[in-house]
């Protein structure tokens, strides 16, 4: 039969040997760096925390109260409703990251900024902000110059007089009340808006009142667990209440995933239960170098008494200064280059140079900072302002490049739509491009800040002290930073305990802060990607 004669016995095979070899080579290349880093980090964490010095009973207690329930619950959720597990993990992650930011902010309020001064400036800035909103609402036909003039005048007068007035008002609210109001107030508004859209007006109002009340109550309860009301109010307003609000709003909007909220309960409850049981039974924990004393005291020649506190505070202050300087400059340059600049030889030259500047060694930027700010502008060496300005210069090219990427990724159709509606360039940038590019810009900026926080060389070049015993409280104070302190422990004080204990401990703190910052960037990026 015809069909039989045309029958194909086999299609033959095509060799894939080279392709397979290539594939596994690529896998090896991918894993090489990651595995090396993992081995190194495990060693550092082992040296810093020394988990093996703890009693077996201590490990067993936490295994039973924390690890086993968490793993069991996660496995159960993973098999039943994976989205619930993601929600639970997100709540735990939010709690951890916000707690760290809250701790950093609490440090600022306790040691750097007097809450009353903070309040006076908040009031002074709130007045022009209210003016702007009022002008918008009152008459949208007011000429631009009049509006701008009024706003600038109000802002200048307000900044000039209001702080002084507020600081001399006879009735002074206590510090924690100031924080609870200035941070808890906006938080309550956000919570009210979120719950208002989930339920109704009254629900939102109630949620906002509950949030503000919770901040106040937690602040007052702080002393009972050994935390002063001021830091407790910061922690409550930045970490506890926002996390609880996030969990509650998720429970309302995603009823199917409610089971996932058991995960944070199990994790937090297990940790406390474990600590309680271990304490009761007298099991000794690990002799960790990273402990409360390490985080809260200054350097000392005795390694056991030495700590990282002034360096942590210095790093936080430097980051605030760097962000305040590099963000407006970098984003401004990026917007100009992407949206306004003509495509000519000069802009292409600037393009190439910005890319090259991103690769210039950081020590050169240190020299630049020293030359420009100290020699020419007569700044004193090693101050917060000088360090911040130098590090800002260092990351400026990266901020510009990543912001330009973000702006470029705004689809051309959006610009066309806006221009087609008769929008000016400024209106298009303000209403369409910046809102759309903002998450990307923020991601890039946070990742560059992560680079700045780990820099040592530029700070050495500008004469920042390696060791600092007092926390800087002003822009003109001497500043140190975490990597500098770690570097000095590894070189100047190269005793055995310094080298094997304090250095890893400092590295761990630095890495954890870095990861917390990057996690914010990752969350922003994921949110951005799902929206795009």
């Amino acid at each position, binding site marked *: 039969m015809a069909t039989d004669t045309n029958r194909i016995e086999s299609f033959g095979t095509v060799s894939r040997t080279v392709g397979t070899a290539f594939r596994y080579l690529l896998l090896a290349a991918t894993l090489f760096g990651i595995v090396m880093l993992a081995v190194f980090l495990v060693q550092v964490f082992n040296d810093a925390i020394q988990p093996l010095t703890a009693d077996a009973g201590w490990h067993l207690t936490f295994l039973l109260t924390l690890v086993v329930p968490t793993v069991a619950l996660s496995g159960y959720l993973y098999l039943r409703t994976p989205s619930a597990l993601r929600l639970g993990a997100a709540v735990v992650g939010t709690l951890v990251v916000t707690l760290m930011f809250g701790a950093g902010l609490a440090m600022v309020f306790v040691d750097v900024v007097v809450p009353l001064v903070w309040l006076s400036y908040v009031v002074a800035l709130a007045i022009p902000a209210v003016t702007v909103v009022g002008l918008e609402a009152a008459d949208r*036909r007011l000429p631009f110059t009049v509006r701008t003039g009024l706003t600038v005048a109000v802002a200048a007068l307000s900044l000039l007089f209001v702080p002084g007035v507020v600081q001399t008002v006879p009735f002074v609210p206590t510090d924690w009340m100031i924080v609870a109001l200035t941070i808890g107030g906006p938080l309550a508004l956000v919570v009210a808006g979120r719950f208002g859209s989930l339920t109704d007006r009254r629900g939102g109002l109630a949620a906002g009142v509950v949030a503000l009340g919770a901040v106040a109550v937690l602040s007052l309860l702080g002393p009972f667990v050994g935390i002063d009301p001021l830091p407790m109010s910061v922690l409550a307003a930045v970490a506890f209440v926002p996390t609880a609000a996030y969990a509650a709003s998720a429970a309302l909007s995603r009823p199917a995933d409610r089971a996932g909220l058991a995960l944070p309960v199990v994790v937090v409850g297990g940790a406390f239960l474990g600590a309680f049981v271990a304490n009761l039974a007298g099991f000794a924990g690990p002799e960790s170098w990273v402990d409360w004393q390490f985080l809260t005291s200054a350097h000392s020649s005795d390694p056991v008494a030495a700590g990282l506190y002034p360096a942590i505070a210095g790093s936080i202050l430097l980051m605030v200064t760097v962000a305040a300087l590099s963000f407006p400059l970098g984003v401004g340059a990026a917007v100009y280059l992407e949206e306004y600049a003509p495509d000519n030889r000069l802009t292409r030259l600037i393009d190439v140079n910005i890319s090259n500047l991103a690769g210039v060694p950081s020590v050169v930027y240190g020299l630049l900072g020293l030359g420009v700010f100290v020699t020419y502008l007569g700044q004193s060496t090693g101050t917060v302002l000088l360090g911040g300005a130098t590090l800002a210069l260092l990351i400026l090219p990266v901020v510009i490049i990543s912001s330009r990427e973000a702006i470029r990724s705004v689809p051309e159709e959006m610009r066309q739509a806006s221009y*087609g509606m008769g929008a000016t360039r400024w209106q298009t940038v303000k209403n369409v491009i910046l809102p759309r590019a903002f998450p990307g810009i923020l991601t890039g900026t946070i990742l560059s800040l992560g680079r700045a926080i780990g820099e040592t060389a530029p700070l050495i070049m500008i004469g920042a002290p390696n060791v600092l015993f007092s926390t800087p409280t002003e822009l003109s104070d001497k500043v140190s930073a975490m990597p500098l302190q770690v570097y000095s422990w590894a070189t100047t004080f190269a005793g055995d305990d310094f080298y094997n204990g304090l250095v890893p401990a400092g590295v761990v703190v630095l890495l954890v802060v870095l990861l917390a910052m990057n996690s914010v960037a990752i969350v922003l990026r994921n949110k951005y990607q799902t929206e795009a």
Partner: protein
Amino acid sequence: MSNDTPMTQNEEASTESETGSADPTGDTLVETDVSSGLDGGTPQRSTSRTLIESKNVNVWYNDDQALKDISMEIPENRVTAMIGPSGCGKSTFLRCINRMNDLIDAARVEGELTLRGKNVYDDDVDPVALRRRVGMVFQKPNPFPKSIYDNVAYGLEIQNKSGDHDEIVEQSLKRAALWDEVKDRLDESGLELSGGQQQRLCIARAIAPDPEVLLMDEPASALDPVATSQIEDLIADLAEEYTVVIVTHNMQQAARISDKTAVFLTGGELVEFADTQKVFENPESQRVEDYITGKFG
């Protein structure tokens, strides 16, 4: 004419066009006979004034000439379709009308293109102000990543228009035949709508500031047949209040919805411009007949 009360302006505009034949200003009158079966949807109208007139418009992209000596008169409150093969310059011509080509560095326009007698390429014409009178809908639906309400109100916001924005947004969405589908979710993102809904949202956005002309660059080419038919019905309705200029690849679409048709052929030439019925049933040029009957292009 004041822009304060958009509804009034529309009424004025349509009144003018109805009494256009008696207009003493002596504007060119274009005979537009659309009574035949090609265009059953649109109401019967006889004559209309010229709103847009182009005289010898040439466009270059760097050294490549995209349009050659285009001269045509686009009537007011009518649908004028532009058809032709890809790359024939029909979209380029559309973008000349609201000077969107200004945004392309390489583009150069010569000739005269008047809107209500004023050359839009005069030195004293602000292209941004021009675009506020000439709405545009693009090939791919391009709502902003904002709420449905903010999308429609965008033109009102950037033009600082006074008046009740809620009312204008509602009216625009109704005119774009989208209101019933979105009235309960004006706060949701415009990107969550389907493709056809997004395009109607873009039309609502374009008509909210009450332009005189609505330019549409292949508005239905990215949509499925059902959404396409909705958009086509909408265009017929819009022509009662606006002058619509539409670029399309789809010849049946041009035949269904337009009063006048311009056929562009390769090389940027305007080969034929006449009443739609005439172009499709009895074209003067052999090349147009070949194109329409599918022998070429």
